[in-house]
């Protein structure tokens, strides 16, 4: 759960509360420590919302309380400093950023799973083709370029990509399954990942 949600929570806190890198990290750490300490996960009711929504609301509540406490402390000192908000300019709301980071983190973890799996079963070539094409930054090479680069026929490029994408999808599903309580929640979350 922490591996999937650490980054989304961190980015959400940064954007929603205008925290700098260090404060956001501290708050993220504090949130997960409190969540574990207070058995936050056990209090989750899948009938009411998805775990992702529940967690985002819990983060918002936790960070808002911490933020208010920090402001009270400042006012108690008699001098109020204007906070300089270090915040990336974004057209997306903190909630949208949270969701996007969640998709990104799930994908990153699934790519790690895929890499490990392809090494285990001797399918490094498939992973390399996938990496060269689907994970390429900027312009993607053509299938013909990839065929030349890896000395394989073009049809094998298609097969390598089909295998890697299939496995990747499976690993994402497994990661989502690990953070959902019901089949319906899993289905809804899968739709949020892909649609």
């Amino acid at each position: 759960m922490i591996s999937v949600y650490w980054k989304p929570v961190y980015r959400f806190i940064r954007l929603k509360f205008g925290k700098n890198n260090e404060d956001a990290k501290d708050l993220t750490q504090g949130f997960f420590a409190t969540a574990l300490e207070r058995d936050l996960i056990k209090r989750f009711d899948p009938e009411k919302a998805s775990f992702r929504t529940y967690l985002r609301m819990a983060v918002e509540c936790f960070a808002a309380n911490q933020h208010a406490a920090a402001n009270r402390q400042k006012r108690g000192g008699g001098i109020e400093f204007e906070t300089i908000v270090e915040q990336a300019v974004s057209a997306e709301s903190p909630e949208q950023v949270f969701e996007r980071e969640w998709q990104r983190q799930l994908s990153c973890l699934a790519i790690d799973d895929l890499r490990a799996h392809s090494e285990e079963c001797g399918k490094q070539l498939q992973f390399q083709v996938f990496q060269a094409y689907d994970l390429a930054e900027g312009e993607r090479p053509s299938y013909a370029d990839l065929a030349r680069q890896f000395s394989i026929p073009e049809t094998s490029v298609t097969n390598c990509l089909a295998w890697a994408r299939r496995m990747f999808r499976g690993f994402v599903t497994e990661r989502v399954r690990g953070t959902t309580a019901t089949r319906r929640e899993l289905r809804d979350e899968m739709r949020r990942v892909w649609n």
Partner: protein
Amino acid sequence: MELSDSALDHLRRVVALPDLSGTRYELESEIGRGGMGVVYAARDRVLGRRVALKVLDITPLGEARLIAGLEHPAIVPVYEAGTLPDGREFYAMKLIKGARLDHYVGGQPTLAERLRVIWRVGEALAYAHSHGILHRDLKPQNVMVGEFGEVYLMDWGVDAIAGTPAFRAPEAVLDRRSDIYALGALLRFLLRDPKPPALAAIAIKAMNMDPAGRYSEVTALLADLERFEQRLPVEAWPEPLWHRLYRFASRNAVLLWLLAAYTLVKFLIFFLRKF
């Protein structure tokens, strides 16, 4: 590892597409999203025809099995069901050329055409109910009107808490009367101002918050619609006297005109003889 926004978008796009390798189908384009998955237009290479391919998110093939067992002109026939290489389940069905009901009404169909849609939907529902099957998610987006006016009822809901708010009955546990509620909501959706009071009353009765206050069967609702079309009093509406007279006059217009003409001629003859 880090994944840029553009790489993430690409990955999500390509991985969401169904993996049709090893199947007889060739992907053409996405044509819609239903309650359970995404529908694509695809080409069946073996039979050389276009089909609609519904790829389910993660749910089992309940819907396919459900509708494969129903043979009705308003229920889309299922050709094949199976599992894709990526693990998702799919089923192929007839590709309907036409418009979704919410788009169809934009073409300003006549009242008779709109009522015909309700009739066809109602008949399909009644047939499914007679086989113990509920639709659960009846709404304009799930009704297709084909090129030749044929009507199809799509997206049979198998989820216990399916439904779309404006068309979903308020009760938690759905039964046949919940589908009747949705059919009433569909009728209301199709009515334009000024609404014929008898039709509005049929929709209101079907949409009664208390299931016991609704029609007990779809066929009872259809019977009321038939009475409306035949200009007879409908069960859902205690008709006022003026409307009864108006309806009597409109049903017997020819007779009344003949009677009026006869009276006028008699009257003229009477006067001509007198003077």
